[in-house]
Each structure stands twice: as C-alpha cells, then as structure tokens.
C-alpha cells in the first residue's frame, strides 16, 4: 500500500488552511517477525502500519492530529483538529508568546542497503531453524529461541507552503538469539546480540551476514552452560572493562537521556524523569575524564538511527556533544532549542526531534549517540588491570529520574587478575553515579574494538513512544567501581 508522495502532497496543500505553520508527516511501515523456539516455528507476524500526522501552529499554540485516513476527507478532519488544538493552546502554551519556528523540510534519505531482504518467510524460518537446532547440545538447555525482525519504513514530510516532499526510506534488520540453561537450582540466560535486540542496524541481508548471527546458536548455548558452571561474581570495588554490548546501555542511560533537552526543560518530569544536567552546564561542565568523546552521528550509514533530517525537518549533521570530557551541547531539536535559547541564547542543539510512528508527535530523542574510539587495544586494557571484571551484554538496567544513581547487570563476566583474563563469573552487576563513573574512565578502545549496536525500544514521552536508537562504542575501562554478584 505505498503512498504516492507527489499526489498526496498536492491534495494536502489543496485543503491546508492558512496558518503560521502547517505540515504533514506520513509514515508507512511493514514489519515482519519470524521466530523459531525450541526448533518449532512460532506464528509468523506481519504488520502493515500507515497514517499521517498534521501539525498546525497558531501564534504560540501548536496542535496535532493523526489519522490513517489520508483521503481528502481524512486530511480535512486532521487539519481541522490540529488547527483547533493550536487555537486552544494559543496564549497558554510553553512557547510563552513566541511562535514555534519549525524548519521547511527538504531532502532525501535511503538506507545504504546492499542486499534487500528477498528471502521468503519459509527461507527465513530455515535459517533460524538451523541456529535453533544447534542450541540443543545438553539437557540443561531448557529454552532457546532465534528470531529475525525486518522492517521497511517510508516517511514523508511536507509543508503546506510548497517545496518538494522530503522523503526518507529505511530498511532495518534485527537478528537475535538467546539460550536458557538450568541446573542445580541456577538459571542462566546467554544471548547473542542482547536479550532485547541489541544487534540492530540499517540494511538487509548483509546485516545478518556481517553480524556473526550465522553460527551463533551453538556458541551461545556453550556460553550458557559455561555460565551455569561459573562461580558468582565477587563483590567489592574493582576495575571494570565494559564491552560494546554493555557500553551501549551505559551511554544510553547515563549520557543519552540526561542530555535530552526536553528532560532538561521539564517536559518529562511526570514520566521518564528530569536530568541532573542544567542549561548553564553546557560549555562548562566536565562530564567525564578527558578521554571521553561523545558524538551525535546521524551520518553513519549502517547505524540504526541514521537519517537526513529529523521529524520537524531539521537537517541532521554529526556533532560532538562531549569533547575531551567537556559537555558542549544537548540532544534537542528546533522547538525545544527555541524554548531553551530564551535562557541561554548561545546554546546549540542537534536535529533529533523524532516520533516513533505516525500517531505520535516528535520529541527530543537520542538517535545515534556514540562514544568515539581511543588509543588502547583490548589487550592493553586487560594488561593494565590488576583486579577487575570484564563484562559483556546488558541484562538489567535501572537509573534514577535525574539520571544519577544507576545499577546495571550483565550476562557475562570474566575476572581479570594481574593483567590476565581469568575465570568466567555469572551475574556481574555494578552501580555508581553518572558523573563520577564517567570521570573514572581510564582507557578507551581503538577502532577495532568498536561495535555498532542499538535498541528498538528507547521509551519516553507522554503519550509514550518507543523509538530506534543507535550506539557505536569501543570497549572501555573504568577504575574503582562498586561491583557485586547474585544473592546465591
């Protein structure tokens, strides 16, 4: 059910009212989820979603309306509703007398897909079945599942004032696999790519091929059994080396969310929370050690949240948010930045105001948020550690509403003693406070340690929105961290 962008744009402009700003964002998405659990195919799921959201600005009032009915009558309904909300909000909106200045959208983007997914559903089931069957290596393997989630998304953003429709087209591929082992009262889960879809990238079949998914079944099952036999992670203060599939979570929770400008402005205080970061800290606050360099990078073409412009139409460019440990700019797009600049006129933002679907309005998100590589090899990080734990693959995450006090857990731990990797340990956890933690960053991995990860499930907003975000990171070493294991 593809939409005809030109025709839709013409029809929209024909019925759009005169307004300070009027635009239409249309999203069409096809999602297919195939899964094999314990060598049996689960029900195949296909979802075809489409619809549009109209935005109207009237003075300092902004209003939205969303519908799947993109006929003339449907567009007229949405325009009338959005205009009504904008009129009602006028004079009592957070824009406080200053009409929101939204960009004129333009441009095109398409995922750099090399091999579009052309495998039939039956062929995808065959692939997953092979990995599933490879997991069955021991009676203590009590559950296992291999999945493949593919999505194709087309987006259009047009203003009522003219110009070509701004079009973006995405292909997303998300393979995953997990294995559960149980014995002697202990249950351990080991996943490939993270239990909650950590290996997710833009692209097609090539994502599966380069990911290492093929052959992951047996390897993951063996690691689950290793964890089952492993001792509990010890407790105490020690160094940690975090691999990229844990670093992505650390970046996400303790850098990404606190830098979201709408949190800083208070919009999220009733749900996702606020931030320990305040507007006066940009350009002044030492967020982490001088080794910490964090970029917002929508230009990395395989990363999950690459795009050419955000959902308010602002062109997307790579920017440093933190350089040499110094905090420089927030994750905030046009409308939030306008509000923030009333207090800090020199504040700069990035194009990252996004919506999860056609039925939700754009808000500030983190998109691709990456830690830039450093100069240490993984071997050097291990050699520099007298006593510590190498941790892989996030399993548990919790942080306070200001994004300070966190506690994270991993699936896989391996002790480091006297600069050498030692025994595997299960249930490794660590806790800390964001700014202290990032200031304890002592080594950053070279480019060869970088992995491009992400998550399809970054949640925030009222009404709630779960969006796709990308995180590329090298392995990193942190000193003197509070580490602990399981209860028994």
């Amino acid at each position, binding site marked *: 059910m593809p939409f005809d962008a030109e025709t839709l744009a013409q029809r929209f402009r024909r019925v759009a009212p005169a307004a300070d700003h009027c635009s239409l964002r249309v999203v069409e998405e096809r999602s297919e989820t195939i899964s094999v659990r314990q060598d049996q195919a689960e029900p195949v799921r296909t979802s075809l979603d489409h619809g549009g959201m109209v935005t109207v600005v009237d003075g300092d009032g902004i209003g939205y309306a969303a519908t799947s009915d993109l006929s003339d009558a449907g567009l007229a309904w949405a325009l009338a509703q959005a205009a009504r909300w904008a009129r009602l*909000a006028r004079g009592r909106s957070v824009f406080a007398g200053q009409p929101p200045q939204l960009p004129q959208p333009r441009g095109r983007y398409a995922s750099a897909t090399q091999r579009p997914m052309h495998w039939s559903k039956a062929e995808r089931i065959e692939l997953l079945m092979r990995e599933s069957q490879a997991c069955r290596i021991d009676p203590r393997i009590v559950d296992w599942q291999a999945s493949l989630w593919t999505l194709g998304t087309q987006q259009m953003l047009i203003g009522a004032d003219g110009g070509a429709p701004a079009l973006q087209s995405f292909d997303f591929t998300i393979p995953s696999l997990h294995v559960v082992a149980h014995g002697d009262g202990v249950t351990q889960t080991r996943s490939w790519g993270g239990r909650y879809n950590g290996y997710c990238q833009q692209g097609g079949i090539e994502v599966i091929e380069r990911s290492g998914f093929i052959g992951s079944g047996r390897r993951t099952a063996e690691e689950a059994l290793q964890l089952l036999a492993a001792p509990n992670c010890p407790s105490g203060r020690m160094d940690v080396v975090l691999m990229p599939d844990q670093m992505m979570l650390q970046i996400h929770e303790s850098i990404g969310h606190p830098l979201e400008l709408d949190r800083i402005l208070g919009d999220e205080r009733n749900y996702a929370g606020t931030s320990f970061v305040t507007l006066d800290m940009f350009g002044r606050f030492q967020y982490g050690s001088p080794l910490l360099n964090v970029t917002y990078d929508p230009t990395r073409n395989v990363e999950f949240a690459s795009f050419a412009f955000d959902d308010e139409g602002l062109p997307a460019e790579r920017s440093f948010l933190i350089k040499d440990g110094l905090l420089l700019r927030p994750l905030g797009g046009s409308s939030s930045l306008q509000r923030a600049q009333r207090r800090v006129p020199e504040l700069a933002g990035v194009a990252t105001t996004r919506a999860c679907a056609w039925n939700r309005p754009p808000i500030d998100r983190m998109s691709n948020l990456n830690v830039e590589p450093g100069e240490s090899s993984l071997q050097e990080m291990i050699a520099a550690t007298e006593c510590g734990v190498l941790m892989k693959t996030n399993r548990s995450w919790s942080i306070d509403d200001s994004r300070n006090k966190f506690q994270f857990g991993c699936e896989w731990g391996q002790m480091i003693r006297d600069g050498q990797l030692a025994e595997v340990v299960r249930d490794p956890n660590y*806790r800390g406070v964001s700014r202290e933690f990032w200031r304890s960053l002592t080594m950053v991995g070279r480019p060869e340690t970088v992995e491009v990860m992400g998550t399809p499930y970054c949640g925030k907003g009222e009404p709630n929105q779960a969006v796709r975000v990308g995180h590329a990171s090298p392995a990193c070493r942190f000193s003197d961290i509070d580490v602990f294991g399981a*209860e028994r």
Partner: protein
Amino acid sequence: MRDLFFELADHAFGQLAGSEVLLANFSGEATDFIRLNHAQVRQPMSVRQGELSLALIEGRRRNQASFGLTGVAAADLERTDLVLRELRRELSSLPEDPYLLYCTDAAHSERIERGTLPSAEQAIDDVVGAAAGTDLVGILASGPMMRGFASSLGARHWHQVEAFLFDWSLYHSGDKAVKCAWSGSRWDRAELSRRIEAARGQLEHLAQPARSIAPGEYRAYLSPAALDELLWMLNWGGVSAKAQQTKQSCIQRLVDGEASLAPQVQLTEDTARGLAPAFDEVGFTKPAQVPLVRDGRHAGSLVSPRTGAEYGLAANGAGEDESMRAVALAGGTLAEEEALAALDTGIYIGNLHYLNFSDRASGRVTGMTRFATFWVEGGRIAAPLAVMRWDDSLYRLLGTELEALTDAPHWILNSGTYGQRSVETSRVPGALLRRMTFTL
C-alpha cells in the same frame, strides 16, 4: 468502529475456501491527548487509530497479519482483501504449528461502557484553569478504547470503554513533587479542581530541605502506587506459565514450593473487576478470576492457549505474554489513615521508579524512590527524602518483611500509552515493611 469491524470480518469470512478458518482481532481508540508542562500546554492532539489483525488457519498452519484501518469502509474492504490474499499465498509454505489452539465456540459477548468525556475546549479550559499558579506537568488522555474479536466459526466479541485518565505531578522545586492520577468515565470539573487543590496542599511537606540517609535497612511504607510498581514486575515473566516451565520466572522458588510469601498475600488476576476485555486473541473467554497466590503460596499461573498446548496445561485466557491485565492484591487489616502511625519512624515511599531485576532467580529487584517520599519520625512526616536506590527481594518485601497491608486497596488505571492506551488495571493496598534495603 464496531459496525465496521464486523463488516470487515464478515466480508473476509465470505472469502474463505475449503477448510480455512479466519480469526479477526480489532484494536482501536479515538483519543484526545493534552500534554502539559509548567501548567501550560506542551502538545495537544487528537489521534484516531484502528488496527485489524487477521489470522488465516488451515489444518495446523497459521499465518497472520495486522494492518491499520482508515475507518472508510470501501478502502478498508480493499485492504482486507489484499491482506487475505497475501496470507493465503504464503500459508502453504509455512510449517505446521503443533501448538496451534484457538476457540471453536460461537460465543458472543458485548461490553459497552459509555462515559461523559470532556470536549477539547472543556478539557483544556478545565485543566489549565485548575492548574494555574502551579508547576503541573503531565497528560490528560480521553476517549473511547475498543477491542473486538470475531471468528469464521461464529464467535463475536466487542469491548468498548469510554474513559479518561489525567496523570500528573505537581512540583515544588527541583525533583520534589506530588504524583497524582485521576481516572474515570465521568468528567467533573469540580472534582478536578478539588484534586489539584489537595495535591497543592501536600506540597507543604516538600518545602523543607531534602534529607539524605546512609545506605542500609530501614522500616518503610509503600503506598498503593509504589506497591503497584513492584507487583508489575511479576508481569515480566513472573506469573507466566511458560516462564515457569522453563525455569525463568522471578518467583520460580515460590512456584517450585521452595519459598513462600507472607500468609496475607492473596494475588489474583481479576478480569471481572478490570477494564481489559474478557476474551483473548484466539477467542477464548477469560475466567472472572484466576488465583495466583493464596495465603502466600503459589496457587496458579497465567496460561496462554499456546503454552497450554505445549505443556499440557489448561489455558485460562492469558494473552501470549501471559501477563496480568487486572492485578488484584487483597487488602489487609491496617487502616490506611493509620499507616504513618504504624510506620512510626522510617521511610514513606510515594512512588517507585525504573524497576529491574538485579537477580531474577532470587526474585531480587532494584529501583529508585521517586516523587513524594519522606522521612517519618514518630508517625509524622519529618522531611522529604533525597532519592534512594533500593535493592531487595520479593520474598522479603512480600514475605518475611511484610508487616501489614492496608485495608482499602486503591483502583489504579495503567497510564501506559505505548502504541495505544492501556486498559490494564490494578487494585492494590499499601504495604508496611519491617525492613527494606537501600543501597545508594
């Protein structure tokens, strides 16, 4: 949307051939959202959405797809035909499903609860007016929510609830706030004003400087909202029969009879007193109640049809995720108004935040305190408490350390709106704890 759903379903049933069976599910809403910050309007909107899901079955093969409805019959009939053709084209290439189970009864049900909901003008005038002079942040969601099921075997179910939920926080300063929610089917401006005024009155407790405490064990009281957050962790594979069968449940030791909770813990999936539909995605009717914990011991699990077929268990109307839609924890004997006095000296916790398992096998959960959380001395609020991380096990919090439950469980409508508004509800009392472990 009711008539359109059944028209589309009947049309699709008319296209079936041979022994094909078709299951049709509908989910939709027409919602006005008003998002607020600093008692001003941030994002107001109207959302009309509907989704039709078709599952085509032949023998033991099943293929299913969902798609958005426009609400215009001609366009939606065309989409229905397209999707049905695609399902049929793929079906024979898919493997047989040994765990396929669906309802073959021709059962009918209908539940329609009308409400008196505010217009856009009324909602914005009332909320902004009542919040004037405060630092209010939150969201109002209002409108009908609809679910439907029909099968080519004759089953027809329709569920429609017209309701609103105003979920908001009133801030004093910094991160000190009172969290509130008001839900119902009859909008009442006077009641809204009364509730905001009552919350404003509670802000005086937050005026004092926040007190910090050292990590350790403290006597604590969990408000119904805080206990509700804790109980929802059981929905993360806790009460699921599949999770239990594969040894992944966070209450596995309870299920296996190796541990128990406090004898006053009576936990039920109480569909009859919730807002969720009383039918599942494959047409089975849900029991009015499913006992999950009785007298602190495991009493039952939520079993989806698929899990039932796989493990030889009797399905009890659970969805595929086997999570609770209508949590009910029975009240105890502590009068709610006596909770502070009974706490004496310790921590009053208004809300919990960002819970996760720190050790799932041991039922150990970590999270933060949030919003109105106070240090209490001699049964009186002494000072707001700076947010604290806690880490403790369900077997302690609902077991050895549970001193009392309050006598009047609160009815709570889940404020979740991922994809669509939630129809999940809870009835939960407050809990007085002898000790709770705070770690950071």
